């Protein structure tokens, strides 16, 4: 029997599955946080979640609205000062994967969370870098999750807040002490991975019911597809149930506060 689910749920479940049990993950707020906690509540109970507010090995019962909600601290193994978080735990090489969202991403997986338009006269001012610039280079690898649209997936980002592979795909070449960078991008339509040579993002897996045309239509460059294009496995009933419970719990808690 086929299950009913939304494209957002498909994205969250696929993003969650990217995390392996036992990994240490530095979690961005929003979609990455939803995916990381879904992983922890399903196939990866021993995944270690770290938030930039200093909360180490945290197990929130509800999703935080902000990166520093009390829930993160109360359910953490310990909470450290923010300089320690960035210096010892992230820069010190203790993080396997950084899980990030973004406003804009380009074909070389560079991320823009700074602004749309020109820096001196921005069309839209976005929040800025936050933890991302150093998460993306100091974590072992980077997963990125965001909704697919032509506005978000652009050929060249307006501003490189956070390094993917640079404007020419060579931004990590010969740089010492740097992580692998983005290894997968999970959207509501597909999964993309960087081409091993050029580092351009290539579609490796289409979500069930999604056509190549839909991905082409939602991508701002001439997107390529892997020769062995796969079909992303559907969410299981258990994953959907746990995700929906998590979101309902979160909504109730935030409405009361």
């Amino acid at each position, binding site marked *: 029997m086929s299950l009913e689910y939304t494209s957002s749920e498909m994205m969250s479940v696929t993003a969650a599955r990217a995390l392996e049990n036992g990994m240490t993950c530095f979690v961005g707020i929003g979609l990455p946080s939803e995916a990381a906690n879904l992983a922890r509540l399903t196939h990866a109970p021993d995944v270690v979640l770290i938030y930039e507010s200093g909360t180490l090995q945290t197990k929130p019962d509800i999703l935080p609205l*902000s990166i*520093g909600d009390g829930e993160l601290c109360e359910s953490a193994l310990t909470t450290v000062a923010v*300089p320690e978080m960035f210096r010892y735990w992230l820069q010190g090489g203790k993080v396997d994967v950084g899980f990030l969202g973004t406003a804009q991403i380009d074909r070389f997986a560079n991320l823009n969370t700074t602004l749309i338009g020109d820096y001196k006269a921005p069309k839209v001012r976005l929040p800025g870098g936050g933890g991302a610039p*150093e998460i993306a280079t100091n974590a072992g690898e980077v997963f990125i999750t965001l909704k697919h649209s032509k506005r978000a997936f652009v050929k060249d980002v307006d501003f490189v807040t956070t*390094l993917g592979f640079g404007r020419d795909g060579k931004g990590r070449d010969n740089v010492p002490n740097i992580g692998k960078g983005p290894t997968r991008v999970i959207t509501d339509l597909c999964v993309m991975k960087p081409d091993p040579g050029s580092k351009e993002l290539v579609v490796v897996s289409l979500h069930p019911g999604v056509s190549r045309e839909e991905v082409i239509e939602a991508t701002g460059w001439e997107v390529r597809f892997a020769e062995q294009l796969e079909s992303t496995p559907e969410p299981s009933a258990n994953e959907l149930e746990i995700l929906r419970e998590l979101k309902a719990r979160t909504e109730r808690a935030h409405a009361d506060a």
Partner: protein
Amino acid sequence: MSEFLSLHDAVARYVQDGATVAMEGFTHLIPFAAGHEVIRQKKRDLTLIRMTPDIIYDQMIGAGCAKKVIFSWGGNPGVGSLHRLRDAVEKGWPCKIEILEHSHAAMACAFEAGAAGLPLAVFRGYIGSELPSVNDQIKFIECPFTGERLAAVPSVRPDVSIIHAQRADRQGNVLVEGIVGVQKEAVLAAKHSIVTVEEIVDDLGATPNACVIPSWAISAIAVAEKGALPSYTHGYYGRSNRFYKEWDAIARDRDTFTQWLDNNVFNAADNVGGQA
């Protein structure tokens, strides 16, 4: 030794027009009551430093207190934009402000370097980011031992830092608990510091490794009950996520914002940060 002052007197004494001010608290323990007092006293031309400007600086920017903001993430957490910050940057209302933006790692290291009395912070950062092209305070240096290229930023040395904490004892020692952010670093990096607290107690109840700031490292302590609302104080009250969401509509419009400021800051008692 720290001195117990009213919030009014502490702000009047230590926050001068044109000063460089850091009001820290990483989502938690944001010193809103003190921010409102700065607004009420109509302080001007401040250089405001905070990793996350949050609603507190949105309010102070909208009220015309700032000439410059140094920050690393300028959004309303989980909600969206800081509309007063954007209006000031994009349209110059109520006055033009300059911004200088960093990453979190850079600011955290800069506060730590300030506390350590160093002129700069060195870290492995900004690799491949275009932030150094728009912020001339970001430089790169070569490690004299390995030759590795590392990022360097000037340390943060505010004229005054203001934080909120759970409690102080009668000698003026302060306990900070929960998400401690860069609060201790902000106090130690500054020439002067004001700590607002929920209450004064006989015994802090601190465990050996707790985050305690000694009285002699603080300039002034002021009691401000619920002084962190709509952010929160671990062990005392929760974050008003509802107010953070409501702020979006309040701050979006200049008139609504001005009205809110009149009702909740200018015409409110001086030790109440909360209005949520």
